[in-house]
């Protein structure tokens, strides 16, 4: 009996000990499971911290390129900044590591990665951008501007990011569908429409300025000279785009007496998509297929009144981006002086509609109807794209609630421009975040 008891107790002890060891291991595994999750979370947070540091350095100083390594939160991170293309897009890659003790004795390292891509803020991304909310309309024959305050009032709606480098003048309840930014807080009194009570559908932020480097125009000219199409002086150029993809070039734009050539495609006319005219105006119309940026630059002497882009008629994409956001047709219009909707010699009625699908940039002037206060009624204008202007202006004159001159206007932002731009469309020196990838 004594021996049997001893054997029984020894056997039982062995079984219990074995099971208890398993229980102990299960508990350890359980702790390991949380430990690993903690480690992953910490590594992720450290990578985020590094990414935030790198982001801030790059946003504060667009020339920043120095790789960096640092300790943080019990681990470490390192990041590098790569240039991605000639436009200056940058990629920030952050690697983080943290060491943990696994199963009491073994060390393990857990890492994480965050990648962010930045680009210089392209002006095509804005639904509406202005250097100032002042009237900078210039007639075709004079560079004089009134410079008076321009107001956004009840009934005005802006879709897409909206920015002005000075301040907004807001009366009544203008509507901003997307985020609004400005150099300083808005002026909300003293204008038409009563006290300003704007609707900021996606919030606002003041204290932001976005520079518009004139150097971008020089770069466009150089690109047009090297692998695009450069018209230097002479008569104004007419570009008529056809839905088949072809482009008809006429010089002068009205007669084609000097040149009247049809190119099979935008690429045949300008392989890199950049078409620049210097000291001349460019007149555009038609249905374009493909991508192009049309640029008109001012010159000296009599050329000081040149550098305008004129919309003679509709300028629309072959694949309508308003109904098909996957459309790859994309047009940029860049005018060093003004962008006009032509009215001289163009017959329109109050029922007429004119449509432009493009991102429009004017460096010194603005975008409006030619002679908007004396051209008669020219119907409705629809823009699907974006506006980046030196200043604002009117599109029409109104009497008794009816338009007596000019056009009514309807602007809609092309959401493709939030992440894409027409070829080499002007951009700021400032960087902005385009994508943020976390593991």
């Amino acid at each position, binding site marked *: *009996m004594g021996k*049997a*008891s001893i054997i*029984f*107790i020894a056997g*039982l002890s062995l*079984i*219990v000990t074995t*099971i*208890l060891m*398993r*229980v102990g291991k*299960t*508990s350890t*595994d*359980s702790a390991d*499971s*949380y430990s*690993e*999750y903690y480690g*992953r979370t910490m590594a*992720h947070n450290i990578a985020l911290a590094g990414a935030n540091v790198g982001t801030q350095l790059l946003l504060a100083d667009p020339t920043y390129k120095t790789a960096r390594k640092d300790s943080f939160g019990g681990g470490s991170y390192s990041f590098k900044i790569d240039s991605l293309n000639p436009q200056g897009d940058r990629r920030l890659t952050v690697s983080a590591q943290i060491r943990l003790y696994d199963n009491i004795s073994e060390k393990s390292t857990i890492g994480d990665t965050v990648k*962010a891509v930045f680009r210089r803020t392209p002006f095509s991304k804005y639904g509406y951008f202005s250097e100032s909310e002042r009237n900078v309309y210039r007639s075709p024959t004079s560079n004089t501007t009134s410079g008076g305050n321009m107001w956004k009032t009840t009934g005005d709606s802006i879709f897409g*990011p909206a920015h002005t480098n000075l301040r907004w003048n807001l009366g009544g309840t203008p509507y901003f569908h*997307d*985020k609004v*930014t400005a150099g300083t807080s808005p002026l909300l009194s003293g204008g038409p429409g009563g006290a300003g009570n704007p609707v900021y559908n*996606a*919030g606002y*932020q003041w204290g932001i300025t976005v520079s518009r480097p004139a150097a971008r125009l020089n770069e466009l000219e150089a690109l047009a000279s090297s692998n695009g199409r450069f018209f230097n002086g002479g008569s104004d150029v007419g570009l008529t785009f056809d839905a088949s993809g072809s482009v008809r070039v006429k010089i002068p734009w009205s007669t084609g007496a000097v040149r009247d050539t049809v190119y099979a495609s935008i690429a045949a006319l300008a392989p890199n998509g950049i078409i620049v005219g210097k000291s001349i105006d460019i007149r555009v119309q038609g249905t374009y297929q493909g991508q192009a940026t049309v640029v008109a630059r001012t010159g000296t002497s009599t050329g000081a009144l040149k550098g305008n882009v004129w919309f003679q008629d509709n300028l629309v994409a072959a694949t309508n981006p308003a109904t098909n*956001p996957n459309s790859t047709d994309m047009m940029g219009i860049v005018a060093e002086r003004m962008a006009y909707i032509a009215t001289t010699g163009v017959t329109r009625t109050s029922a007429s509609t004119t449509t432009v699908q493009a991102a429009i940039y004017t460096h010194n002037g603005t975008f409006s109807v030619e002679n908007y206060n004396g051209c008669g009624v020219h119907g409705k204008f629809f823009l699907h794209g974006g506006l980046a202007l030196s200043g604002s202006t009117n599109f029409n004159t109104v009497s008794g609630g009816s338009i007596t001159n000019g056009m009514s206007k309807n602007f809609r932002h092309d*959401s*493709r421009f*939030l*992440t*894409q731009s027409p070829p080499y469309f002007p951009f700021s020196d400032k960087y*902005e*975040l*385009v*994508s*943020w*990838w*976390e*593991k």
Partner: protein
Amino acid sequence: MTVILDLIGSTVLGAFVLLIGLNLNESVIATADASGADLNVQETLVDVVGTVEYDFRKIGYMVNDPKMSIIYADTSRLRFLADMDNNGSVDTVEWYVGPQRNRMPNPRVRALYRRVSPGNFVTAPGLGIVEFKMIFRDVNGALVSSTYPVPSNKLSSIWIIETTLKVESPYQVADQVMGTDRMVNAVAFWRQTRLASRNIKRHG
């Protein structure tokens, strides 16, 4: 007589020892069972949480207009856009919980589904989920909507997704705190109050 007393005494003592041993054995096995169940639910939770975080952090990645990234949001179903595999093509990702699994000993258990299209590929990354709940907050931390699903005109206001996950074992095990007589389900719980994708708030 002495021998008989020895035999009776040792039999009684032996029986006690045997009972103690069997009781100990039962107790240890119950503990092992409960620990195993705890480990299972914890590992399931950590796995599911890892996948949820991996996906939710990418909401809006490479989407043209990040404000349009979330296309459906309910308390237990979320559909959003993101280029999940970084191949330049935007995917539609959907997370949702299925109905309760009646054949399980634990009637509260549900399957959690993740569907990525194109392809409509559905995977069930977690079994044992009894709660998968989301609350949507705006830039100020306020609730985006008091009604669910979130109205489509408010989807673009979503800034933060507060996510709650609860996993239970499919069968009951001995309660480790109150004693072996009480049977409960092993439980693991996770709540992320600030889960937000940087992409959906990058523009402005």
